[in-house]
Every structure is written in C-alpha cells, then in structure tokens.
C-alpha cells in the first residue's frame, strides 16, 4: 500500500487519473503545468502534459523556482483532505482546492518566483488538479501518522 | 435472432446504441426520420442523447418525419452486412456518401428545413447504424 506522500503514491494516483477519460471532459482537458507539492520537508514535482500527469519525482526545495506553482499545507491538512476524498469519492464542498486556498490564512497555491501568470495556472487548470486528487480515492493509501481533524 | 427490417431489430440496435458512450458523446439531437426498406417503413425518434423510439409507419407517416432514407432491400442488407463484417461503416458506406453515390440518392424529404436535420445529425445516425455490428441479424 503506497504511503502518502511518495513517488509511488503519486504514480498510483497518476495511473488512475490518466486512465479515466472522464477527466478529459467537463472542464478537464489538456493542462501543461509543473506543480510542486510540499509536505513538511518532502518536496515533489508533478509534471502535467497533455491530458496526463506524466511524471512524479522528488525535487529539492530550491527547484520550486522551476514549477508554475506549488501546493503547500500543514501535513495534517493534507491528510485530512485525502481522507475526505476517500470517504466521499471526491472532495466534498469543504475540501476542494480552491476552497482550501481561500479558506486558510496561508493559502494553498504559491509561487516560488512571485510570477502571478504562472501561479494563475492553479486557476486555469483547477478542475484538472482537482480531478487528479479526486482520483486518489481509487488508491489505497497509508499515512505516516494519525491526525485529529481540525 | 431479429429480422431486418423489423421493430424487434431496430429496438435491439436502439438498445445497443443507447448503451454506447460514443453514441452519446456525439451530442444531443432532436429529429425523427424514416427508414424505407422496399415497402416497409420504420420511424425512428431521436431526442437528447438517445434513440427514444422506433415504430412502424405507413406511407402517410412519411409526411410527419423530418426525412427518410430509402434503399432497396438488397442494398440495405448489403449495407448492414458490411457494417457487421467491418465493425463500422467504412468511408464508402456513410449515408452521406451513399446518398451522393446512388443515382437519385437515398435521402428524401418534403421540407428543406427538416431535410437539413440529416446533415445536422448525420454522425449520430451513422453511429446508430454502426451499433448493428453486434446485433445478430437475419434477413
């Protein structure tokens, strides 16, 4: 069972996301973006190209400057979001990415270069990124800790 | 095994088409049209993303449809058999091509506005008949 977060876990989610053609319609579709993911001191890069998430890899924090934007939350909030997705099949109304972004003091989507054009890709491809994390409901996931919901 | 043409045959194809995601993915439509096989006349009603009904009609019923497709029974049979051997109608067997290839054409209508519905939905109609590929048929 893959552990969140890990390349193995992101690969499993990518397989589920990439294989579901429904993710290409209804506001999904091609999305070219490098998306960073920060979970404590672990940093990952997701490469979205065309209709798919093509690759997940571990990167250095300094490499975030090469991403279009990155998503960073308190580790407990990451886990809470993913549990919510697993319970509902998709994120419910309180756990969509945009809601998490606006409804938190620090925000969720950030830019390492302060380039709003690249950060705006979070909005441009919002449904695709949402479909991606929603696809994690198909992936049995292990977490490295237990959390108390906020 | 349903006989072509019969209500049973068209109903079987209708069920197969409605269950095909590619059929629905071609988009919504709203038309009714006739299929004339020799003296036999069948009316098909399409609405939204489905073929909603098939019914037998008489010659007068042709006045109530947007258009109808007419071929001799042997031509229809050969057309269906082609789909069944090929899986789908190939480039020479699309209705538009058949209409232009056949002397006198196969598309008929008494109303130019309603005739135009064939062109609006021809890919959906084509996909409907492609669904016959999986329907065991006798003639």
């Amino acid at each position, binding site marked *: 069972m893959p552990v969140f977060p890990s390349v193995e876990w992101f690969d499993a989610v990518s397989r589920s996301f990439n294989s579901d053609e429904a993710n290409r319609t209804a506001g999904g579709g091609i999305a070219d973006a490098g998306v960073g993911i920060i979970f404590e001191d672990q940093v990952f890069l997701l490469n979205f190209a065309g209709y798919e998430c093509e690759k997940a890899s571990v990167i250095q924090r300094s490499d975030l400057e090469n991403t279009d934007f990155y998503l*960073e*939350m308190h580790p407990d909030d990451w886990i809470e979001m993913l549990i919510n997705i697993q319970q509902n099949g998709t994120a419910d109304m309180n756990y969509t990415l945009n809601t998490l972004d606006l409804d938190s*003091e620090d925000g969720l989507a950030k830019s390492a270069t302060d380039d709003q054009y690249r950060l705006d890709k979070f909005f441009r491809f919002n449904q695709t990124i949402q479909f991606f994390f929603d696809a994690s409901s198909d992936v049995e996931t292990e977490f490295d800790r237990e959390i108390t919901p906020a | 095994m349903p006989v072509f043409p019969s209500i049973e045959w068209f109903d079987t194809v209708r069920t197969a088409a409605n269950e095909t995601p590619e059929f629905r993915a071609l988009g919504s439509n709203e038309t009714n049209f006739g299929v004339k096989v020799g003296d036999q006349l069948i009316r098909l009603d399409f*609405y939204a*993303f489905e073929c909603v009904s098939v019914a037998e009609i008489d010659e007068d019923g042709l006045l109530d449809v947007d258009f109808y497709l007419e071929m001799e029974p042997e031509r229809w049979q050969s057309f269906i058999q082609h789909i069944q051997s090929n899986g789908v109608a190939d480039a020479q067997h699309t209705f538009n091509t058949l209409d232009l290839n056949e002397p006198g054409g196969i598309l008929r209508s008494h109303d130019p506005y309603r005739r135009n519905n064939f*062109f*609006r*939905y021809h890919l959906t109609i084509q996909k409907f008949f492609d669904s016959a590929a999986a329907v065991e048929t006798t003639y």
Partner: protein
Amino acid sequence: MAESEEKQPTKTTPPPRRRRNLKIDHDVEVPEPGYAWMPRTLEWGVRVKPGAKGMTMQGLNVGIYGEIPDRWDEQTRMPRGAYPMAGIPPIGFALREKREVWADNAADLYEEAIQRRWIPASDIPWNTLEPLPDDVEAAMCQLCTELSQAANVEFETIGYWLQHMSYGYHEVKLFLASNMFDAGRHHEAFRKRALANGGGLGIESKGEINRMILESKGGWSETSLLLHLLRGLFIQTIYRYGERFAHNPAEKVMFARALQDKARHTAYGLQHLRYAVTHKQDKALVFQQLLNIGERVFARELQEPVVLEPLAVIFGGGIEGAKAGMREVHHMMGDFVRSYLASTDWIGVHRGRAFPKGLSRYLEA
C-alpha cells in the same frame, strides 16, 4: 556547502500553520447594509428543472422570462426579465426589433452547438494523412485555402454584428457566438489540413462574395440571407462532397464534422429569414432585390477557377481525371442549386425567372 543548500531560494516562507478559517479583521467597521435590492424582482419563485438534455436555455423561458417582446427598447445590457434601474446611460444597440434577429430555434441550436462540439487538434485522425499526388494535394490545399478564408469572413461578419444586437434577444446572441466559434474551428481545421500533408496554402480568393457579405451593413437579416443562405448552403454542399471524396479518414472526419456545424447555421438562417419575411411586409421583396444582385455576383465569382477547378481535380482523382471530375462538380452544383431554391421557397422568397442562368444551368445536372 552542499549543492542543494546553495540552491535554496532567497525567499523563504514560514512553515504552514494548521488550516483554519480565513483570517479576518474583527475590528473593521461594518456599514449598515441597505438591502434595497432584496425585494427587487419582477417574478420570484421560478424553479426550472433539467430535462433529458440537461438544463437548457430554452427551458428557462418560463413566466415573464419567456415573454419575448416584439421590440426591446432597453438600450443597455439589462438581462431580459431583470429588475430595471433608472438612469443607466445607453450603449446604443441598432437591432432592437425581434423580427431583425429572431429565430425560434436559436436557444436549442446554441445548446446543440455546445453538445456537438469537436476539436480539430485531437478529434481528426491526422496520422491517417498519406502523401497524395502533387496535383491532388495542390487542389486540396487550394480548396482548403478557400474554405478557411470563407470561414474567416463568417466570423468577421458575425463579430461585427454581435455588438449591435440588443440583449432582449440573448438567445440569438448566444447562438451567433457559437456560430463564430464553429467558424473559427473551420478556419483552423482547413488551414491545418493545408499545412499537414506536404502542400501549403494556395491563392487568396478575389473576394467578390466576401465583399458582398462583409459590406452588407443594412440589416442583420440581409447579411444572414447572403451569409447563411446563399454562401452558407454552397459551403455546406462542398462539405458534403468533401466527405464523399475524402482521401483518408482525416479528411472524412473533418468534412463530416464541419457539415454538422454548417447545417446548424443553415437551420438558424432558414428560421430567421422566414421569421423576418413573415413579420415585415416588404421583406420578401427586399430579399428578392438582394438576391437578384447577390446570385449574379455569386455566379460571376464561380467563373474564377479557384474553387470549382480544384474540386474537379479532387473529384477526378487528379488533373487527368478533371474532365470526369468536372461532371461531378456539375452534380454538386445541381445539388446546391436545388437545395438553395427549395430553401428560398421555404422562407417565402420565390426566385422564378429572376434566377440567373449562370446558376440555373446546373439544374440540368
């Protein structure tokens, strides 16, 4: 120092805190709300449910919201049925009569356009293109040049008119936006075909018909007559024959898809033009006059070889077959003229003896 440490970004952010609600300033002074807008509605209690086609624009036309006035005097963008506010400066819409734009099928055609959309980049199997003989490729490229330019004229024309149509008839504005979108797709698809198989673009059109459509500024109905009926049906007929004579699945799909779009535009044109004729006494006469000229311009430009000759080469499978191909072109023109005359009759404009020889000669084909 390790490389990763050296590459640390200069900008550091504090570690994220546990999520909590948006940070708000509780000391801010909140002005008393007026709520003047709260009771302002002309009709309340509407509950439209989605049907088999989902929630459609046509489905919204209930109660007062479904009352479509013959004239819309509002000179701003106020949505039909919204609670009006006094003192809004006008924008100035030229088309405010229902008969100038309306077609009963506009809302449904708009939804249909969305449901039946396609994507030239990925829905056309471009990898099925195979090299063609130079003469056939050149003819195909010339045809695509002409079709792409005609689509360009179509969206330029609608782009001009869209801003002049009042918001009382938003269904028509929405449909025409989809018509522009379709035309853009045709412009794109035919350009792509010309540049995808070892050829290139051909020569531009002389532009007689283009000019006639683009310079039609007297009224939208008159423009629609030329754009949707005269030129539109011609292009639609070419698409039909394009599907029939496609050399590969890519061309087959391209023409088949474009044909559906074009038939939608025709459906609007026919309904609108009939509406215009039946709601204005002399409109049929105006259309007669315009077509007397327009058909002759059309027939004259057909003498230019850039459309019918390439079609003859395509239909004939090459220049050597162009003679046989030209016979097919005559069939095509016969189909066009018959559908055109049936359509003019349908809208209430009977061409009769005024129809030019340059076109009627194809009726024998």
